[in-house]
């Protein structure tokens, strides 16, 4: 029933690989992917464990729809304890490897322990082996990808891999799959590298069957595809301009974090926007964008495939970057662009290539560079630290240099790899770190979009837009328009988005479908595929259960309600321009209400009543 019902357990310490049945009782409560893997993680590790020690586990997980024909159903997640935040980390990625893993017959792979020497997992249907990775350790994701493909003489093998940044301990290293897709946030790549696991290479030829009611499923899938095609965002905006369609929109709303979030509008936004990626360059007359691209099964195809001007200073003598590769998404364009004050589209594309090539989260990287630039402007970080580089806001050269050295874990790059929180603490200015629970902010200033303040403050993985994307409502009017500058109703909005997103992240579907799909579109697809009676209501309950379980993990890990806050800059320094001019984020108006409707105490801890209602352990995980 859509699930493969098989879990692979790989003990890296002993080299033992085993197969076990998927816990279907848990699947009925947590569905799959984000929810189900979090359940496994909470059952199997001590939340207080060292994220980079052998006691942490790393779970690569698919959802029940992953690998089916439902639109966007190629997603997988990596669930582990984050070294960046200490929270539960769940990073979701598209591309093709998730579907490949499912097609090979596996719902989940649980990696535990630590390999004595670098290895990679080679998985072909029922056969899996750990293979020495000495020859690719110390090389980039792209190099390792090519090397493994060559070794197995199989262009269709799908590979997820960590780069040099992860090996060198960069705390926001990503797991890169299919060259330019990534489980990007929270340092899941760092965990993988800490286990001496360089890559996972998968070839699946068994297929995904087991659909509960195939006729109903195909009908629901067909209907869902039509809804996506007919919707202005998923049918036109995203395929044409990608997520970077937001660049100009968010800038006009006055929620474009700029120069380490000192400002809320960026004067260069139109030069780095989705529209700008279409415009012919002066030098060679070609646009940055080559084509859009879809992940597995995706009928939206928001992906960007871009090139850099061959004459640009970043690559004029590096022909290896002359070809096309994954281009700028909105978050990367913002983090590398406006947050660093850089408006050079080619430079941003280069830095983005480097983030893909060596596996770094461009959001955390860009934000960290922005914080470093602010400290450079203050004279706290100097050319002595940077080896002579002028780390100035607006400097494309500095940005690209920072990308290079952080990707390779060289010199000052090692410090940038610490992330904004630790870097700012190290240089004595923790207030300059634009983070929550240690994770860097994404591209929506909570002074201009109030709901995003609550989103960031309460996100279970630290600051993140993908835990409750209230921008949809507050800016785009999906499903209903709310005023971005008011706080009223935002607690309810955030909770609803958090629960729905947790459910969608557990299906194998892409959260971008929810620009067009409601739970009423999604639930019939799940229900037709899976046993368990998956109504929209049950989906939302499941989402709430997942949200609370993640919260329990974090509480048991020592993170508390006190950490549900924002940097002072968001709470005290008013926006200087735009519609939000004069505003700060009024988190205090939203948080108590949020706790209340969550069924949590004032300390931010779920009450035992709430726990009981959701089927969670009384007294929390530690009990």
């Amino acid at each position, binding site marked *: 029933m859509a699930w493969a019902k098989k879990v692979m357990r790989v003990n890296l310490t002993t080299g033992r690989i085993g197969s076990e049945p998927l816990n279907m009782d848990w699947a009925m409560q947590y569905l799959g992917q984000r929810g189900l893997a979090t359940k496994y993680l909470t059952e199997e590790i001590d939340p207080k464990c060292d994220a980079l020690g052998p006691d942490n586990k790393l779970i690569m997980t698919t959802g029940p729809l992953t690998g089916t024909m439902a639109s966007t159903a190629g997603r997988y997640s990596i669930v582990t304890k984050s070294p960046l935040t200490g929270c539960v980390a769940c990073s979701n990625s598209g591309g093709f490897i998730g579907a490949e893993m499912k097609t090979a017959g596996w719902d989940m792979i649980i990696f535990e322990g630590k390999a004595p020497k670098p290895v990679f997992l080679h998985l072909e249907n029922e056969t899996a082996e750990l293979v020495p990775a000495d020859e690719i350790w110390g090389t980039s994701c792209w190099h390792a990808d090519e090397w493994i493909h060559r070794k197995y003489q199989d262009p269709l093998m799908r590979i997820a891999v960590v780069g040099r940044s992860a090996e060198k301990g960069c705390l926001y290293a990503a797991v890169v799959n299919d060259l330019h897709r990534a489980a990007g946030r929270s340092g899941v790549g760092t965990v993988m590298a800490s286990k001496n696991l360089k890559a996972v290479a998968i070839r*699946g030829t068994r297929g995904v069957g087991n659909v509960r009611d195939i006729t109903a499923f195909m009908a629901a899938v067909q209907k869902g595809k039509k809804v996506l095609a007919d919707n202005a965002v998923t049918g036109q905006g995203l395929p044409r301009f990608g997520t970077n369609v937001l660049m100009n929109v968010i800038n006009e709303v006055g929620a474009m974090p700029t120069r380490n979030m000192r400002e809320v509008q960026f004067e260069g936004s139109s030069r780095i926007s989705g529209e700008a990626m279409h415009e012919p360059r002066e030098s060679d007359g070609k646009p940055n964008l080559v084509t859009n691209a879809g992940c597995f099964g995706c009928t939206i195809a928001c992906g960007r495939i871009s090139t850099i001007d061959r004459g640009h200073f970043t690559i004029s003598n590096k022909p290896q970057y002359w070809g096309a590769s994954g281009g700028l998404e909105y978050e990367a364009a913002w983090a590398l662009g406006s947050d660093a004050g850089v408006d050079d589209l080619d430079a941003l594309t280069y830095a983005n290539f480097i983030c893909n090539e060596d596996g770094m989260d461009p959001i955390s990287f860009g934000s960290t560079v922005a914080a470093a630039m602010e400290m450079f402007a203050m004279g706290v970080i100097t050319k002595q630290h940077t080896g002579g580089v002028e780390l100035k806001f607006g400097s494309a050269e500095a940005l690209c240099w920072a990308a290079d050295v952080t990707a390779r874990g060289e010199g000052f790059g090692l410090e940038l790899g610490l992330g904004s929180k630790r870097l700012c603490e190290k240089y004595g200015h923790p207030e300059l770190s634009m983070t929550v629970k240690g994770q860097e902010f994404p591209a929506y200033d909570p002074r201009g979009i109030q709901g995003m303040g609550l989103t960031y403050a309460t996100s279970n993985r630290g600051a993140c837009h993908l835990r409750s994307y209230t921008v949809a409502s507050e800016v785009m009017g999906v499903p209903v328009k709310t005023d971005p500058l008011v706080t009223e109703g935002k607690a309810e909005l955030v909770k609803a988005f958090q629960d729905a997103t947790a459910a969608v992240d557990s299906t194998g579907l892409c959260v971008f479908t929810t620009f067009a799909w409601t739970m009423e579109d999604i639930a019939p697809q799940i229900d037709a595929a899976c046993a368990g009676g998956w109504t929209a209501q049950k989906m939302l309950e499941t989402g709430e259960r997942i949200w609370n379980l993640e919260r329990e993990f974090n509480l048991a890990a020592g993170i508390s309600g006190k950490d549900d806050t924002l940097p002072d800059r968001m709470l005290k320094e008013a926006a200087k321009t735009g519609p939000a001019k004069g505003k700060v984020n009024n988190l205090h108006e939203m948080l108590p209400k949020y706790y209340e409707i969550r069924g949590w105490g004032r300390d931010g801890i779920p009450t035992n009543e709430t726990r009981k209602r959701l089927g969670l352990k009384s007294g929390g995980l530690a009990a």
Partner: protein
Amino acid sequence: MLKALQIEPEKCTGCLQCELACSFQAEGVFNPSKSRIKIFTFHDEGRFVPYTCTQCSEAWCMHACPVEAIVFNDRTGAKEVLADVCVGCKVCTIACPFGTVNYDQDDKVAYKCDLCGGAPECAKACPTGAITYVDADHTGLARMRAHAAKTANVGASA
């Protein structure tokens, strides 16, 4: 009027919906590795190219088959593998100069596109119109056929 698959690679996003639809139709599971149509990715160039059997008139596969397991469907123009007749000798797979006849190591038979009996699922599933099923004269298959003819020993005369 015979119809044929028209492929416009410039519209393809590489999403594999066609491969999913094809494998589901042919095998009853979602399994791109068993699809009769394949998307080839030219990563460096940002191009995706769907590719499958053109049902070429030379029918190398059909003529190379030693046991008459590949037959001509005169309603659709497709050359179809009869799985229960195929012995699995694989001669068709090496004989097809387009590389569009493959061997299934699980089922031990050759397989290829059969146009789904006249209603190709790949075309129905394609979200961008990169694969359509249209009157054969409109497909631009002439170009591919011309190329095929270069392979021909017999050409059009036999």
